[in-house]
């Protein structure tokens, strides 16, 4: 199934870099450079996802977003912003963006976000048990089993594992964890998330077992049932 992405970005370099990278990643990409064209295409283009820059000529990103949402379009929107300030990011989300990225971002971070947004609808499905190979999480009784062995998790560790399991085989970045679990929109200086993950890893992946939580270099983590 081809997945179509609309890029609305006025900076030619960024536009080119995104188009090339996402095309190589297997997406069908269309790119425009101003907000007005962006809005027209978004309305009748049948895209699966829209990457929308915050500052655009003719019609700025927030207005495009507002118009889309008012017109009843629920297409996932990933906002790009050069404004790192927390309140600025929060405002984007409040206006109906599904996610945002602060420029400059790494391409891995971007693809991780895109994958997360594209698969979102399936997450809404009512699931009672999450499974990844021999790891099972019962969402009702909140019990976690690895190869039949019960794993005792702190509340935060449980949330973190659930976050990873719901995004099985997809990269989860440190920022996504910070935002998703703590609702923090800043980069801590130290490697807090790594330490949280390694704590979780010690409980989930016993030394003798096949490791399920993988580190994806330069990007983040992935709970994987492959390989």
């Amino acid at each position: 199934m081809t997945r179509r992405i609309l890029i609305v970005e006025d900076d030619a370099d960024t536009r080119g870099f995104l188009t090339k990278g996402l095309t190589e990643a297997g997406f069908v990409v269309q790119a425009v450079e101003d907000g007005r064209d962006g809005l027209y295409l978004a309305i009748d283009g049948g895209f699966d996802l829209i990457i929308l820059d915050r500052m655009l000529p003719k019609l700025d990103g927030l207005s495009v977003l507002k118009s889309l949402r008012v017109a009843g379009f629920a297409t996932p929107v990933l906002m790009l912003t050069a404004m790192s300030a927390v309140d600025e990011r929060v405002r984007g989300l409040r206006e109906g963006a599904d996610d945002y990225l602060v420029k400059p971002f790494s391409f891995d971070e971007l693809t991780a976000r895109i994958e997360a947004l594209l698969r979102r609808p399936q997450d809404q499905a009512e699931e009672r048990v999450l499974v990844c190979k021999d790891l099972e999480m019962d969402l009702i009784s909140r019990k976690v089993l690895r190869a039949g062995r019960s794993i005792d998790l702190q509340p935060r560790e449980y949330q973190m594992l659930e976050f990873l399991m719901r995004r099985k085989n997809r990269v989860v970045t440190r920022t996504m964890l910070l935002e998703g679990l703590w609702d923090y929109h800043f980069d801590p200086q130290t490697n807090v998330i790594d330490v949280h993950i390694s704590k979780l890893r010690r409980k989930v992946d016993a030394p003798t077992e096949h490791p399920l939580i993988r580190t994806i270099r330069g990007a983040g983590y992935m709970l994987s049932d492959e390989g």
Partner: protein
Amino acid sequence: MLRNSKTRLILASSVLGVGATALVLMLFYWAAYAIFEAETREVVNAELTGLADDYQSLGILGLARAIERRLENADERDAVYLLTDTYGRTIAGNIEAWPPTVVPGSGWVELELFRTDGSQSVLVSAASISLQNNERLLVGRDSAGRARFERALFQAAGLAVVAAIVLSLVTGWLLSRLVFNRISDISRTAADIVSGDLSGRVPIRGSGDEFDRLSATLNAMFDRIEALIGNLRTTTDSLAHDLRSPLTRLRTQVERLTLENLTEQERHDLVLRMQNEVDHLLKTFTAMTEISRAEAGLGRADFETMDLLSVTKGVGELYEPVASESNVQIQTMGSAQPFQGNAPLLAQALSNLVENALRYAPSGSVIKITLRNADDMVSVCVSDQGPGIPDDDLTRAIERFVTLDDSRSDRGTGLGLALVSAVAQLHHGDLRLTNNDPGLNAEMTLAVKSKVRKF
């Protein structure tokens, strides 16, 4: 000349002064003239009545003699008389002939007549009556008296106008000197400031007048500008200094990448190192932006009622695993009343404080996060048991780009505490560092009610 507002002010005040004087004089003239006229008529009418009585008692000859007597009286030079007989011939008087337009008894008339003692016609105001045997009597006053009266009045008026001009010029000059001296004080100070000397202040005379109040407001503004510029200068200097080293390193690395023969592994490592440099630079810029925004008061729009304890617990919980790795405990105690604040920014500020504490906390020690309530403030204090900061450096440590311990391997941006301080100020509070002996207390005080900052 007219572009000079001092001249304009003096001129305007003079014109107004002279105009007012002239108006007063004009009204005065009209009033005086009316009185003068009324008096003239009264005198003439009285004389007509008197002469008519003379005619009744003494007859036409007695009347003629009475008129002649009056004409001899030097005091009555303005007086005009004419008595004619039944046939219109002159019996007595100082007018050539009975003016044909005047019908006796028709009241008050004004006309040009030739006096017997003058070669020019004069303007005469007169009244006339008809006597018993159709003799006619005319009594009047010529305009010479009025002219004298007017001359005297105009002389006085001229003097008054000259005096008004002089006086208003003098007051205008004094007034403008008073105003313009104060204004040029202000303008001189402002010019000094524009030219770069930020220390100048407008002198205050202590009279408490409008100029003193204006000067005080301006001085407060200049104080603020000086502080802001000073702040900006330090920031820019430090920024330039702080960015130069990573940029220089980056440049060297780029050079190595392009010039040297590197193995694939070396190349990869080098690129990773460069990426780290760039990330560090970006972090620095992000932090700078956040500080500026907080200092500018942005983020107050997003204030909401919040619970500092839950924010604190969240931050503590985030760092707890990192802390326990280095065998440090994080303890949260106390509570805070609900207050108006920006939760995301406060979480960020708190995490900066905790990170800072973690950096210096020795193994086996405790980092305490204590919440307290005061009247209209809440405070959160992060205390570590590390080496602390020398007392002299306590205030300096909050400034931007100041990292007191240069030997540390993990580079901070040097902006952590500056951001905390800016966030505290955003909440109308402050950040205070004190020594804990051993260790450091970093206490953030926040106002419960967000008040409008007054200048």
